[in-house]
């Protein structure tokens, strides 16, 4: 695609631990066009949260990051601290999971939305910032009067909306949503997804949606990428990947979200055996091979690269 807003090339993230270096992200590449949306699906240990934080260099000091992350023409990984600050929140912002600890418990919600505006001086005066905060609260479906509340006074759904408002405070181009609906009820989840969709259209936002809930992604994003053991193992248009997966892992993952009304899954729960691999202790060859129902001779020998599996689709499996 021409001029993608976010272009990631061969990203590697390795943590330094007492037990030695642990690779959490092992060569991930993807791109999101301006105004587009990408969903990143994966379970615990696949590296998706590490990836999200790496995009804005939010990882702790011991993490080694190599590769290229080009956001709006600038390589985030090589920016100096001043340049990095300029990019954070104004070019790309993250919406975290709205659990109680994502917000400062001793600051009002309004102050927390105003904070990035003051830090980046995007609002002019403090008064203008507060007005904008009130406006943002309204935009995410909350009463402006809630600006004076503390996080513990709000419900889970309300806190999630506050986090969205915070992320939009400096009018970013890219919104990275890291598990934004995970702890929420079904109906609230639907509300938040609808809100993200509206905001995306309104502001021509580019959206990157990270979650373990594959079914949510098919609704929220045009393109889908599935991560396993630090790598992307399948990508393609959302519905196709979910409905007719090329990679056996994606198929196993999709089975956890049965379509209601589909007789094939009625009283027939299906899933994968074993457990998701721990980073740093990956099996040889294809990391999925110990759990794969279609594993063959060559699978333990070498790790397959992404290969084309249809128009705009690819999967990292030798059977493709």
């Amino acid at each position, binding site marked *: 695609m021409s001029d993608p807003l976010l272009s990631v090339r061969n990203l590697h993230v390795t943590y330094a631990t007492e037990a030695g270096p642990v690779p959490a992200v092992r060569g991930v590449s993807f791109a999101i066009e301006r105004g587009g949306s990408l969903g990143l699906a994966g*379970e*615990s240990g696949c590296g998706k949260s590490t990836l999200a934080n790496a995009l804005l260099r939010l990882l702790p000091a011991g993490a080694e990051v190599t590769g290229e992350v080009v956001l709006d023409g600038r390589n985030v990984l090589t920016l100096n601290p001043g340049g990095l600050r300029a990019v954070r929140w104004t070019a790309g912002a993250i919406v975290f999971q709205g659990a109680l600890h994502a917000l400062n418990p001793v600051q009002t919600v309004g102050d927390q939305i105003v904070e990035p505006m003051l830090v980046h001086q995007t609002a002019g005066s403090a008064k203008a910032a507060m007005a904008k905060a009130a406006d943002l609260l309204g935009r995410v479906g909350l009463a402006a009067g809630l600006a004076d509340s503390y996080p513990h006074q709000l*419900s*889970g*759904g*309300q806190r999630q909306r506050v986090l969205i408002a915070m992320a939009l405070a400096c009018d970013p181009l890219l919104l990275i949503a890291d598990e934004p609906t995970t702890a929420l*009820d*079904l*109906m*609230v*989840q*639907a*509300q938040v997804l*609808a809100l993200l969709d509206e905001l995306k259209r309104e502001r021509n936002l580019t959206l990157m949606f990270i979650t*373990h*809930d*594959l*079914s*949510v992604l*098919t*609704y929220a994003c045009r393109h889908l990428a599935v991560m396993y053991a630090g790598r992307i193992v399948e990508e393609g248009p959302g519905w196709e990947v979910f409905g007719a997966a090329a990679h056996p*892992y994606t198929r*196993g*993952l999709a*089975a*956890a*979200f*049965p*379509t*209601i*009304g589909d007789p094939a*899954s*009625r*009283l*027939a*729960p*299906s*899933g*994968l*055996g*074993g*457990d*998701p691999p721990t980073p740093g202790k990956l099996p040889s060859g294809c990391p999925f091979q110990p759990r794969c129902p279609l594993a063959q001779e060559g699978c333990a020998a070498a790790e397959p690269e992404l290969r084309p599996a249809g128009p705009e689709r690819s999967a990292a499996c030798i059977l493709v």
Partner: protein
Amino acid sequence: MHPGVTPLVEVDDLHVHFGRSRAVDGASLRVYPGEVLALVGESGSGKTTLIRVIQGLQTPTAGTIRLEGSRRDRSSRRAIQTIFHDPAVQMVFQDPTGALNPRQTIYEIVAEGLRIARSGGDERHKVLDALSRAGLRPPERFLPLYPHEISGGQRQRVVIAGAMVLEPRLLLADEPVASLDASIRGEILALLRRLVAETGLAILAVTHDLGLAWNIADRVAVMYLGRIVETGPAEQLLGDPQHPYTKALLSVVPETREMEQQILVGEIPDSTRIPSGCRFHPRCPLLQSGTLPSAVAERCRGADPGILPPHAVRAAACWAVTST
């Protein structure tokens, strides 16, 4: 659906109030041997409080619970004071990591129930058998391990083994797979269905996940703000929901495509301020559409549809449904 069969559990007109908060505000249901009943609802619906009462972890404010015919009216003072426990009812918890004492070995964890019940017999044999039936093989390998040395899915299997070792007739499952990785959920759910087939166990599973209900439930009951608002066989309820709340829930489940999304406005009201009339009426899309005859709409706003009769095969607490 179950003519003449004595239900395992009979809950009648159960109320659980915490001060002014009415967590369970009149619920009646039946669970029959060999069936899986899914109790579906969002947070604040009272579903977790309800099964905690059945398990004996929570004393009710009013109402009766009958286990296999014997009557235990647990609103009386004496009943509250005695420790209610029936080994025929066991529980599987949402958070398998939290449910296991980090200082106990797997052997001790699974054997705990046997020791408390002082059941004789070969303890080690029973523990190995339970672990094996829960899918942990070879079971000997797991005996000396501590919870932090096994994976999340394995921990949940240990919880299940610990419950099954007492040969229960009813298993209460509180969001049994919600904390587990998505790809392994199917295995645990398949295990539960297998246990039902092998032992004639009944399962009452509390969940917010309608897909889970589709996967394993024979019957479904939907809860909203302390009341059961609809019950019925799973295919019927999930395929052709009658209560507007059930319809709205199904419409927003990403996996159901045929329905047009009905996203409700606002959130579930606080359980201290339950709306008058039908408790769902302030958010009811059917009422808001204006298509209901005014007599029905009046009742929605003013009259409580009441508690669903537990014997009914298919029922919905909705004036629009009962008025046709």
